[in-house]
């Protein structure tokens, strides 16, 4: 009996070893993941905090000392203020415009049977699929012909164009999700169109509406190609100013500050989206192509 006893005990040890191995692998994987995302951001944070009196270069792995001088410099001596203002005034308008334009379209796409719906959905995706710089260059020619080049309105229109696809996709999914029974019940109880909109549709699409607006806002803040061609040099947004700091005018520390300024509202959005909205919307708008 002793030989079988020891054979049986051995397999328990073996099993534990295998389990531990997998646990280790998982932890390793998780660490790699965190470093993958964390290090680039950390580096940039450090660069933005470099003390101008003690420059950071090889062989130091960390900056010799930290200071907020760079931040002060960027705000005092560059056009960052103007860029911030432009970015954050174009974005809300673009979001509003894309909302207004998307609502009726999403309603029809989400709730009615349309011939060629697949084709229509593809058309909706065009601004995302079309290579950005091509659209930027030649739309700017169209704009120039109509006097929209280098104008605020032109910028808003361009940003709206890039935001609409996300807005429509998310809203279409939202509208689609409303059960027909609920609407039928409302009609059966005598609801007018206005009441239907106010009491049924609007509340039920609210999460989707919010998600769409956040997407649209983010898209507008990040938009580069169109803004670069249509807006510069009259208008600067955060992306274009970052680009200028990365050109032959490369000052790593300035660029770091601007990069962080650009990233932070986005990351806050990320956590809002993750926490308060279902990530279904993310998957729905990106995945269901």
């Amino acid at each position, binding site marked *: 009996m002793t030989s079988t006893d020891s054979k*049986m005990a051995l*397999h328990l040890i*073996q*099993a534990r070893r*295998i389990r531990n191995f997998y646990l280790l692998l998982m932890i390793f994987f998780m660490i790699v993941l965190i470093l993958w995302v964390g290090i680039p951001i950390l580096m940039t944070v450090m660069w933005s905090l470099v003390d101008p009196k003690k420059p950071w270069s090889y062989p130091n792995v960390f900056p010799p000392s930290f200071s907020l001088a760079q931040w002060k410099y960027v705000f005092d001596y560059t056009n960052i203020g103007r860029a911030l203002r432009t970015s954050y005034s174009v974005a809300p308008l673009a979001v509003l415009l894309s909302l207004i334009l998307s609502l009726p379209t999403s309603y029809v796409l989400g709730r009615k049977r349309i011939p060629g719906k697949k084709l229509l959905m593809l058309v909706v995706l065009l601004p995302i699929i079309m290579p950005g710089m091509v659209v930027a260059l030649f739309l700017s020619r169209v704009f120039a012909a109509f006097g929209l080049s280098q104008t605020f309105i032109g910028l808003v229109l361009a940003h709206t164009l890039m935001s609409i696809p996300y807005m429509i996709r998310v809203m279409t999914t939202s509208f689609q999700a409303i059960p027909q029974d609920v609407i039928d019940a409302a009609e059966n109880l005598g609801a007018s169109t206005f009441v239907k909109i106010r009491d049924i549709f609007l509340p039920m699409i609210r999460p989707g509406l919010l998600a769409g607006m956040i997407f649209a806002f983010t898209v507008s803040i990040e938009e580069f190609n169109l803004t670069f061609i249509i807006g510069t040099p009259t208008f600067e947004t955060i992306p274009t100013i970052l680009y200028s700091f990365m050109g032959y005018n490369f000052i790593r520390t300035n660029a770091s500050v601007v990069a962080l300024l650009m990233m932070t509202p986005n990351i806050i959005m990320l956590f809002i989206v993750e926490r308060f909205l279902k990530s279904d919307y993310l998957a729905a708008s990106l995945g269901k192509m």
Partner: protein
Amino acid sequence: MSNLRLINLTKRFNEVLAVDNMNLEVTDGEFVTLLGPSGCGKTTTLRSIAGFCYPDEGEIFFGEKLMNNISPNKRNTAMCFQSYALFPHMSVWNNISFGLKMQKIPKQEQKTRVLKVMEMLGIEELQKRKPGQLSGGQQQRVALARAIVTEPQVLLFDEPLSNLDAKLRVQVRVEIREMQKRLGITTIYVTHDQDEALAISDRIVVMDRGHIEQLGDPHTIYRAPETSFVAGFIGLANIYEGTIIGREANRITLDTSFGKIVISSQDQKISETFSKVKFVWRPEDMKIYTRGAPNRVKGKIIQAVFMGNITDIFMDVKGNKMRAQTDESRKLIAGDTIEFSIPEDAFNILRS
């Protein structure tokens, strides 16, 4: 030589004990059914045999070989899932030949074996179809074919018929049994359907909350249940308590809440010391009273349900609720008085 052995098998999920110290020996070619309600541990046991669940304690032996650390793809088992689990992106042919492909069996031999199995199950014409184009019954057969073509040491079934309609279920379970007998593969079958278990098993393992309530062939399980759980789970049961007031050579007399009864004590395990016992008999064993019949019971009908070939009667006997079934042809209605007799050998003493 026994083919499959479970020794002190124990499995916990968080704090819940799914399988509690289970011991089972299955002989070569035997068809054993694990029967019980949901959560009784039958599926966990099955999955442990297949290798999907690692036991917390205990061992699993195929013959002399200890299987615990062997991963599921290296065990010589084949499983039929409740959902059939056919590969949706492969044709029926590729589904069935998958196991052979994994075993690196040469193409020619694959072909002959797959064709033979398909013929056995009558699904040759389905070769090129995809699972999405098959009916439930057809999918079931393909799943079965896929499992047996690999000639496994142990065949495992996880409630394979639950998704079929009643008529198909009865038909297919017989086919499964015939197939198994013909091929002689040791089989473990999991179900919660007692009719199924009784119809096709060599032995039934009745399980509840992780442990074995009773183990035996269908006839014994039905006619001689050992616990109130088994008695109530399979077939209908009237379960009562009584006090022993007399013992004779082959009979004992009990005093119960509905009167004195005499029961046969042959083949019963009756403790010498305790006088209080729990016992059971089946409603269908009750006969309409005729003169001289044993254990006369008089009751007032609360509800009589006419079901065609039998009438199901719920009655009150001296304040006790009792159930009886009879093929009596006259019409019985609530409020009538009726007298039954219960044969002495219809009773079983329960140990819990």
